């Protein structure tokens, strides 16, 4: 990533566009929309991502700017990570106290499998659903599925679709629901702070923003928990997928598809997935050898 950075500062067109977006969106400021029992928070960063997408389709920016923007996301993200860090340091005693919750909430990512896989199977998807719902589908998961099944397999198509969905819609969606859930459900803002470590920097920023804006007096602790959770997910996320997420998805998929296909197709699918599990095991062996 850093290797490609040479000469990017010269892309004045890109930086001026972003400057204009920042000034306009910050000038518009925050808005709160009450929806039933909760509040949807509209933050400048939410307008920024939408305006950014819209501007891509105008002659103001070209594909070149769009490519360059990717590295700039990364560079700016390092500042956010540093900010996470400096807010987490003073909260060290609280982090230690909340350690068990921080560690165990990582397993919450399995909630995706339990919630989304049944829906995917219900909507009629086959093996694609395994790729789609085994995790949140960011870069490490894309790599994992490609490694196990190949990118042109049904599982590969599934994870790719989810990757594209998350890239385009993830930060917008999480930015909208995070403030709403925190105000509408009885769950504590600290719990949602820990949940923001989903495995993507921009999604974390988008889901953390409304929490900080909705609960300003808890902002320091919320940011500290969020930072710690993000760091943990970046370390443990892939392994949780390999050892728990994907095997659990396979099992649950078998159960669900059996129930769905009570006719002749059932055996075929079961056989198929058994074959796949076999190859997986071989892959797993190979990998563990490599690790050793």
């Amino acid at each position, binding site marked *: 990533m850093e290797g490609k950075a040479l000469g990017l500062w010269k892309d004045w067109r890109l930086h001026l566009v972003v400057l204009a977006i920042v000034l306009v969106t910050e000038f518009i400021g925050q808005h709160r929309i009450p929806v039933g029992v909760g509040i949807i928070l509209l933050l400048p960063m939410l307008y920024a991502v939408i305006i950014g997408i819209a501007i891509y389709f105008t002659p103001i920016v070209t594909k070149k700017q769009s490519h360059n923007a990717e590295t700039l996301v990364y560079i700016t993200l390092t500042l956010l990570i540093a900010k996470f860090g400096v807010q987490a340091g003073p909260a060290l005693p609280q982090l230690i106290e909340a350690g068990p919750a921080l560690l165990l909430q990582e397993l919450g990512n399995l909630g995706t499998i339990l919630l989304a896989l049944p829906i995917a199977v219900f909507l009629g998807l086959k093996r694609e659903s395994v790729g789609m719902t085994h995790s949140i589908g960011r870069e490490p998961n894309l790599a994992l599925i490609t490694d196990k099944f190949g990118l042109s397999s049904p599982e590969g198509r599934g994870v790719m679709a989810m990757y594209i969905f998350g890239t385009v819609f993830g930060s917008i969606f999480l930015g909208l629901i995070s403030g709403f*859930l925190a105000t509408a459900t009885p769950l504590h803002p600290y719990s949602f702070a820990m949940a923001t470590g989903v495995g993507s920097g921009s999604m974390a920023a988008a889901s953390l923003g409304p929490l900080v804006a909705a609960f300003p007096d808890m902002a320091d602790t919320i940011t500290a928990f969020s930072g710690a959770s993000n760091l943990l997910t970046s370390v443990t996320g892939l392994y949780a997928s390999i050892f728990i997420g994907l095997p659990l998805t396979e099992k649950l998929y078998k159960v669900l598809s059996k129930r769905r296909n009570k006719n002749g197709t059932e055996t075929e699918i079961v056989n198929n997935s058994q074959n796949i599990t076999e190859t997986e095991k071989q892959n797993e062996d190979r990998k563990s050898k490599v690790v050793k």
Partner: protein
Amino acid sequence: MLKNIQEWILLFIIVASLVVLGNWVGYDVMPLDAIPGILVLVGVSMIGLIIHKAIPYKGIPSIAYIGILAFIITIPGVPGQEQIVEWTTKVNLLAIATPILAYAGISIGRSWTDFAKLGWRTIIIGMFVLLGTYLGSAIIAEIILRIQGII
């Protein structure tokens, strides 16, 4: 390496200015007040990037070095800690997030045509995929925090 550092410095000058200006317009922090804080954040980020570049083992991402370094220098008792905390408090988190998502939007534009082809089933499942992770983690955290009596 030197060329990289030079390039990073130029890029950080640009993004730091964006943050400071957004911080001014959106959160009423005068640029002069925010400059020490943003310099600390830039410094930490630079050091993290340099460590990542200098160490041959690339298994640890540079953001891990950055996060841990920023964490260590602000642990209570570390020399200069109070000053660093005071400076960086002036740089609003949301002011950093806005330029990130503005750049992200422009970068995302390229994926839009792929996104448009996805179909309604993918979009519905996608929302539950995100919701599942987010809500799942929050529920587990809530249970543990309540058992511990923290909340």
